[in-house]
């Protein structure tokens, strides 16, 4: 092949590939304009969640009436992870860049920004204490090597009133254990403005821990319990229990733990759930499962009875607004 033919071939390939690349970006640009309504975190009887429908409302916080889960009211605020309690929301959002940037934003009942902290990685879990004062968030911190997947987590706790911020629970003491550098925390759930439960991993094992922010300390309660979520009455935790090998791709099953007896029981959902559940009412939890458009929300009774049912399509990070 002569140099000229090679050049012509390469140039035509460049043009074709440019066209293909441009088309794929243009088709991904959301079309249409969204009409924004009012979403409030203090209007009872609503479920507020992240909309994962493709289009201009993607990743926006939306609300539906809890009763019929009908028309979505779309807010102007978008989040990757969201949680709320008692009129305070925590919204974890991100922007890609030379190095992606992620923020945790504290929202008031009208979804206005009250505070913001920069996160060290990709958001995965968010929770607010029942009073709305404390917020916790977990991010993944990834390695920088090419194609590297040696992820670790970092979990921070923020006092939304005073602004006091614990950037990493890894600085907390662990009662009766020597900390190793591979220590990781994730999935905080609050009992009150001080006491919390979380997952702690060390030396390749995961533990359920309880701790206090004021005491700067956690204590192991049991093994193999991830992403706990405390019931509204504070007596039970629903959590992810590892029941199969990671290589199966289906490692977890939701279980409920009675905090008085420390006995656990499997919920009726048999599929592997990779989410920190949200309590819809004292007897029901909701969680996301991967679907065509992001994820769908499902619910199941929290006592092992009944059967799972789909409650919302193309939705994630649900919060049942109570009072």
């Amino acid at each position, binding site marked *: *092949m002569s140099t000229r033919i*090679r050049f012509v*071939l*390469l140039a035509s*390939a*460049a043009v074709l*590939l440019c066209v*293909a*690349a441009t088309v*794929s*970006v243009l088709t*991904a*640009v*959301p079309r249409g304009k969204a009409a924004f309504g009012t979403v409030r975190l203090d209007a009872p009887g609503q479920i507020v969640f992240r909309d994962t429908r493709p289009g201009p409302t993607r*990743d926006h916080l939306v609300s539906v009436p809890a009763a019929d889960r009908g028309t979505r009211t779309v807010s102007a605020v978008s989040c*990757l992870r969201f949680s709320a309690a008692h009129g305070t929301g925590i919204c974890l959002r*991100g*922007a*890609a*860049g*030379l*190095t*992606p*940037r992620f923020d945790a934003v504290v929202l008031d009942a009208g979804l206005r920004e009250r505070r913001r*902290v*920069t*996160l*060290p*990685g*990709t*958001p995965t879990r968010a929770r607010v204490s029942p009073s709305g004062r404390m917020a916790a968030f977990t991010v*993944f*911190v*990834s*390695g*920088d*090597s*090419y*194609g*590297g*997947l*040696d*992820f670790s*987590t970092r979990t921070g706790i923020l006092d939304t009133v005073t602004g006091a911020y614990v*950037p990493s629970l890894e600085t907390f003491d662990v009662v009766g254990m020597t900390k*190793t*550098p*591979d220590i990781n925390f*994730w999935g905080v759930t609050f009992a009150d403005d001080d006491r919390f439960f979380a997952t702690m991993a060390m030396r390749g094992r995961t533990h359920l821990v309880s701790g206090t922010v004021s005491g700067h300390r956690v204590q192991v309660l049991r093994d193999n319990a991830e992403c706990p979520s405390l019931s509204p009455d504070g007596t039970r935790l629903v959590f992810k229990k590892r029941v199969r090998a*990671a*290589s199966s*791709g289906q*490692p977890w099953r939701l279980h409920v733990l009675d905090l008085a007896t420390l006995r656990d029981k499997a919920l009726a959902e048999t599929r592997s759930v*990779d*989410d920190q559940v949200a309590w819809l009412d004292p007897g029901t939890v909701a969680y*996301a499962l*991967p679907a065509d458009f*992001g*994820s769908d929300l499902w619910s199941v009774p929290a006592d092992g009875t009944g059967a799972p049912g789909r409650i919302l399509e193309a939705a*994630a990070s649900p919060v049942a607004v109570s009072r």
Partner: protein
Amino acid sequence: MYVSADAISEVGRKSGRFVTGNVLALGTVSLVTDVSAEMVTAVLPLYLVAGLGLSPLAFGFLDGLYGGVTAFVRLLGGHAADRWQRHKLVAGAGYLLSAMCKPLLLVVGTVPGIAMVLAADRTGKGIRTAPRDALIALSSPAGGQGRAFGVHRAMDTAGALLGPLVAAAILVAAPGGYHAVFQVSTCVAIFAVLILALSVRGHVSALPRPAPVRALRSSSYRRVCVLAVVLGVATLSDPFVYLLLQHRLDLPAGLFPLLPVGTAAAFLALAVPLGWAGDRWGRWRVFLCGHLGLLVVYGLLLSPLDGTVLTVTVLAVHGAFYAATDGVLMAVAAPLLPEAGMAGGMAVLQTGQAVGRFGCSVLFGAAWTWWGPTTALLSVSLALVVALAVGLVAGLGATVRQTAS
């Protein structure tokens, strides 16, 4: 007898250019490929967590499992390229395999599936690295090896810095458009394969082929290999350097992801000058100086320095360490290797260095656990001093021979 010195010096002798056209073509292939690869790397965590709702923590175990396989594949790639003297074909197969993995990421939606695709992607990287480096060496004159590898590594790093920017631009235009990022990445990767196929000249052997394995029996080359492993055992991996830096500084969260960018920028700026310096004053000397730089990094991390001064100096010297060692080591080895064993020789050297560094990570992790970060860092500094002393004494012969050539 070093067939290589003659084989290499035939190339590009007449041209008075800084590097040959083939090196620029190979550099362009690496630049474009790295844009494609780093686009994906930049958005992958976000895609997995925000797009698919997966927790990547489940990957850790799978990651370790596939790591060993890719080291083995690298040796295989080097050997195959030598055996058939088809460097371009074997490297092309590696580039193609990685290119095909990009659209596959769109199809698989499970954690093991994605881990498998990423393993295939890295297998492609393993296959192509040694034949590509052999082609760079065989396309450059003996006296210009340092320059050639310097230019190549600078272009490679430029691609790695550009990739995340391209991905960011796409996500600004199309929020949440991870699919578009993967599709564009596929187009870019295919373009790189086409550049390789259409503008890189393969190496045609003019000599009868000796058995490639026998070709590795040069004592100088073996000495370089052993020293690369020994120095590798005293080389902290990047995450540890950044972790130590963060440990010292309590950096704001937003700055932490910028640390590797700092190292890469210094690497990009210094790769060509230091490669050129190697040609001029001895590549082994520059290689050892690079490790002296690493010792400075350890020293800075132990020093009472603080704040911006510490961050900037550590990152600059860390980048200089890469600029003085990464491509330079290949340039050290190339003149010691016969043409027929070039790719295999480089594969063995790279794998040896990688194994040494892996050993360092394991030992350092354990030392940190038992003795804490300061004592662990002191230990690895001591190990580096010993390794450097060994390198100075044992490498002397190699330095003399190289300056003479």
